[in-house]
């Protein structure tokens, strides 16, 4: 198993209480990205819209959902990543416990247009698969745990809640991979998912589905997280789901990304400073086993941490 060490320096916004409503989560998610230095290229609050740099999502009341008709959207831009942009489009029915916005990216920052009834589009857009970005218990609050590399090239965000034993309710990844083909451009991926409507855990869904948006050879693809696995298909840390008998250490393993799309088949690279861990590991467990809390385990994901005590609900 991989030895935990950080390849990047990170800035953290963790243990953030965002309320118990899905819209509160969406608002906090947007503000988190802005806190990390992302800018708003444009937005709609269902009353006004424009790609004018105005953030019209001041409160949850501005995040209006509508499967047909006026609704909210926002385009956020990461200036550290060649202007790559991320779209959130609230063109669905709102449920307090779970929401399924259209979301996707333009690696070159090409989103244009948009109105109060239609989202902006980009010629290089890649749209993530449909599915809730969060599904949680509205009887308890959501915590948001986010981190971005200091160079701005990697952004991760995870929502936790009492809804499930593993606490993990949403995964967001955006940015570059490491160990990639030099010829693969743009090196930019995104995924935002939290749908366990079929009863599988978030980590199982993330590891068994093509949820990560990318572009290969000029075309959008949906790629799969890849991982060292055993013959029955489960990643190794999940198969054992317990500490190593010889070392008594919890397993964790690096995560790659693979496209299995015809004519675009390739191992694209590796997520930096993100590992899969054993789902049975108590959420909020930190590593190493001293008080430094340099890494934290959340529902099957292991990430760098800021030394504080992780609070999962």
């Amino acid at each position, binding site marked *: *198993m991989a030895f935990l060490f950080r390849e990047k320096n990170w800035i953290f916004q963790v243990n953030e209480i965002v309320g118990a409503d899905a819209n509160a989560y969406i608002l906090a998610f947007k503000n988190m990205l802005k806190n990390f230095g992302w800018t708003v290229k444009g937005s709609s609050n269902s009353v006004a819209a424009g790609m004018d740099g105005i953030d019209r999502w001041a409160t949850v009341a501005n995040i209006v959902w509508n499967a047909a008709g006026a609704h909210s959207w926002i385009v956020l831009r990461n200036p550290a990543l060649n202007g790559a942009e991320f779209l959130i489009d609230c063109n669905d029915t709102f449920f307090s416990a779970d929401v399924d916005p259209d979301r996707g990216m333009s690696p070159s920052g090409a989103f244009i247009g948009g109105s109060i009834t239609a989202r902006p589009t980009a010629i290089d857009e890649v749209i993530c698969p449909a599915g809730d970005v969060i599904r949680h218990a509205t009887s308890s609050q959501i915590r948001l745990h986010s981190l971005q590399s200091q160079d701005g090239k990697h952004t991760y965000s995870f929502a936790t809640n009492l809804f499930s034993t593993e606490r993990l309710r949403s995964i967001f990844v955006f940015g570059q991979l490491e*160990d*990639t*083909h030099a*010829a*693969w451009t743009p090196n930019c991926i995104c995924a935002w998912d939290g749908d366990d409507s079929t009863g599988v855990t978030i980590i*199982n869904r993330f*590891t*068994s*589905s093509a949820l990560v948006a990318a572009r*290969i*050879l000029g075309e959008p693809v949906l790629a*799969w*997280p*890849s*991982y*060292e*696995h*055993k*013959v*029955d*298909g*489960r990643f*190794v840390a999940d*198969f*054992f789901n*317990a*500490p*190593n*008998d*010889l*070392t008594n250490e919890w*397993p964790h*393993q*690096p995560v*790659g990304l*693979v496209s*299995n799309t015809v*004519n*675009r*088949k*390739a*191992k694209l*690279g*590796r997520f930096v400073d993100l590992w899969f861990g054993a789902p049975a590991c108590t959420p909020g467990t930190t590593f190493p086993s001293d008080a430094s809390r340099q890494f934290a385990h959340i529902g099957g994901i292991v990430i760098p941490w800021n030394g504080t005590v992780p609070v999962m609900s």
Partner: protein
Amino acid sequence: MTMIVLPKPEKLWQFNANQLQTVTGSAAETQARIFVTVKNSLKGFGLAPWTVKGSSDAATAGLDGTDRIVDFTKVVSGGGNHSWIVLKQPGTGLEIVCDFNGAGPYLMTIMMSVNGLFTGGSISARPTAADEVGSGSAVHWLYGNNNVQARIHVLHSSDGQNTFVFVMANIVASLWIFGRAGDAVAPWLKPSIGALGGSAGIVAGAIESFRWLFDNANIAAYEGASMPLFTTIEGFGVDFPTETSLPVQIDQANNITGEWYFHPMGLISNTAGKKGRHGRLIDLWAGAPTLASGDEFPGDGSKKFAVFGEWIVPWNGSAPLVA
């Protein structure tokens, strides 16, 4: 994990490659000659060669450092008086005993002692070790009771810690993997592993594929007790039994650069009390099934790596022959 770029071998390798064994007048002679060639190759490396701890030629026996299997005539098979030999890998201290207690030279019992504890033995019984692990009884180590021309390739690291043997007869007829596991977890005090198999016939057998070690715990290891190991490999999706491994799912050159991948393999134990991932294979990769034996990498003619079956190994720049 599968790397995008051509890997750099971790070891410096010595090669005794492309050794030819032609068909002889009898299947038994051909099979015996192949074994003797392998054995002599192991002994013959300039750096850290294997050594003989002892042997039997069915007439005399002893753990006295004498190699009595001087030629094919001394490979005597059978349940009574028969040949065996104990070989020691210098870089790890592991010993293997090749025991010809089967119906012919194409069968042998192969046992390993990671602590080098083989003792005893006679002209009718092999030595044993308190920590021995292995086949337990005579198994196919070659292409069955056939008489087929073969190419023998023996690779041995200069530090004496890792050894591969490929006997090719247009298929992988025999595959030997002995040596040290990479990145072994610290409590695994003797991280030596061993695997030896034969095709058992003249068509591709289980050893042709990386699945030989991936599907079944065919790697012998020892940590206080027998600890058989599986390999792991990078893959995606969990729809077992649908194939999820990368070599099969991307059974082609990648569409971005047109290059092929080398897939490293981890080592896991599912033995109660010894469960976990404990290390990985060194300088042995799985390749796409589409690749052919004799293919080499990179594409500049330097032949730094060779393909045998679904296995990729460092190579010495010569054309890798497969028959």
